């Protein structure tokens, strides 16, 4: 098998909340579980989509993955080492090999620097080029993401939303990474701009053999871009495996509900999922999805199902998966 880049081993991230009581007599401590028992491996060359609604914990998962926050329990590894413990050369290697594209692309670019300096910063920092070669490399990167050379002297505020995302991608590519981690990199854009960017990402990934970890709320984007998918709900991965297989025959009722909610030309609007994603504070026992699940039985409210392999590289956390019923 190919080398494992990222491994999340039973990662839990919870926050303690205080307050709620009267003065000088704080109420009972409450726990917000942003992530709970998350297992995920990403091998070199994989393209993985993390899909979920807001509050599903996908952003927290990303922060744990990048070593921006350490898990309360479990471990997050990169190349077999704990990401928060990386030292010296290994740490420098991680910083160069893994590049991130932010959801807020504009905010991720210093507004006081022109595009040339923005893209040159990682090149210079990692000493990948020197002297005039830096500028040539920046021009090359701009060309790769489909921006004209004139963009070099522009400031982020002079660029459109689509262009800013291209600059952010070029900047991520500048450190010649193995992995690109993208957080909702195409959301909030017009469909034609989104399509342009998706085409660009697919092309870059194929040509450079990049590993891609892509966070999105859109199943369509996930299916277009990624071979692997992990569906998250309330801090848990509820189903994971090859994208095609899962979208053709989802096993978890929540995956099915997400699929149903996807608008389809001229189809009548499907029966929507009832209720809303509950608050992650003080969850009741049992499956987190049980309260909204159309297939829930009393047992679902007692035992919290773990993510169990179900063959063909798939895994599902459900005691009554749809695949078994069919």
């Amino acid at each position, binding site marked *: 098998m190919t080398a494992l880049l990222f491994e999340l081993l039973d990662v839990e991230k919870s926050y303690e909340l205080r*307050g*709620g*009581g*009267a*003065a*000088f007599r*704080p109420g009972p401590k409450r726990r917000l579980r942003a992530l709970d028992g998350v297992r995920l491996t990403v091998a070199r060359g994989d393209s993985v989509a993390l899909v979920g609604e807001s509050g599903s914990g996908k952003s927290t998962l990303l922060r744990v993955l990048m070593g921006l926050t350490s898990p309360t329990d479990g471990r997050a590894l990169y190349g077999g080492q704990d990401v928060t413990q990386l030292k010296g050369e290994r740490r420098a290697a991680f910083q160069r090999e893994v590049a991130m594209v932010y959801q807020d692309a504009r905010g991720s670019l210093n507004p006081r620097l022109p595009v040339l300096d923005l893209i040159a910063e990682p090149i210079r920092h990692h000493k990948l080029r020197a002297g005039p070669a830096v500028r040539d490399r920046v021009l090359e990167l701009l060309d790769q993401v489909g921006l004209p050379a004139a963009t070099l002297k522009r400031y982020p505020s002079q660029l459109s939303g689509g262009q800013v995302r291209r600059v952010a991608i070029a900047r991520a590519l500048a450190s010649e990474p193995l992995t690109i981690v993208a957080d909702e990199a195409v959301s909030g854009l017009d469909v034609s701009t989104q399509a342009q960017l998706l085409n660009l990402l697919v092309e870059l990934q194929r040509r450079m053999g990049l590993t891609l970890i892509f966070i999105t709320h859109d199943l369509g984007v996930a299916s277009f871009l990624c071979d692997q998918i992990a569906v998250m709900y309330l801090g848990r991965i509820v189903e994971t495996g090859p994208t095609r297989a899962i979208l053709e025959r989802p096993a978890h009722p929540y995956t099915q509900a997400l699929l149903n909610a996807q608008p389809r030309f001229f189809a009548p609007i499907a029966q929507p999922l009832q209720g809303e994603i509950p608050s992650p504070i003080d969850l009741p026992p049992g499956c987190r999805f049980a309260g909204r699940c159309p297939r829930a039985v009393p047992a679902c409210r007692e035992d919290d199902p773990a993510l169990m392999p179900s063959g063909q590289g798939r895994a599902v956390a459900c005691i009554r998966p749809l695949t078994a019923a069919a």
Partner: protein
Amino acid sequence: MLLFVGRKLAQTIFILLMVSIVSFTLLKLAPGDPVQMALGSEYSQEAYASLTHEMGLDQSLVVQYGHWLWGFITGDWGRSYVGRTPIFQYAFVEALPVTLTLAASALFLAILIGVPLGVLSAARQDTILDAGTAALSLTGTAFPSFYLGILLIWIFGVHFGLFPTMGFVAPWQDFLDGVYHMTLPALTLSTYFMAMIVRLVRANLIEALQQPYVAAARARGESERRVIWLHGMRNVLMPLVTVLGLQLGALLQGAVLTETVFSLPGVGQMITNAVLNREYLVVQAGVMMTGCLFIFVNLLVDLAYPWLDPRLKPR
């Protein structure tokens, strides 16, 4: 809720302590020897030593500070060298009410005129009326108040002889005469605030009127008047009260100058004279009073936030 109030109070007390440390340091940094100043030019060695002991100046700074703070809290603010009168009586009982009367009447006038003018300006955005109000309010915020006071004295006091140009009559003793004497000073002091309120209300109201909830209110069929006064002004209240609280300092600062111009026996005059007479204890009392007043008012503003904006209600 109680927790919220408690936390705010604790923070306020801490800031008050800091203010007291700042004022105490000021006193210690002041040039000259207080014992010498109290004794005058001729004194004996024993008298010097005994007074030093009496004033506690032979103790450590921390003890002196504690002593001084306790005195301040209990109303023992020391005696003025010049008048040999208790400073508490002079500063708190006599000067402060004058300054407060001036500040309150100026603020009242500023709100009374500034708010409607600001609303009108925002509602008639980009008309001649708006431009005129903008020009006036810009001039009003920038015009030096002490010169404005002199101008008002010249025009209304000297030229037309309509109002008295100096002196203070307590409105709680003779209301009409008090108001009569307060008219020009209050007008002088209020100009800046009136102009500032106009600008603040206009800017915030225009911003509020661009919010989706205002479009939604209009879409519901609410009348323009209701939209402005209910949805617009309700949301302007919060920044308005905040800025008024923060600008209290400017109000007190303006009062110092206005008191000088109109010869009102308030805190401003007190501090000015004290600086000239090198009466550091009085300067310190003035500094402490203005600081405490500012902090107290801003505590009230902080406590009013949850009421002004329900989103800030502590849970």
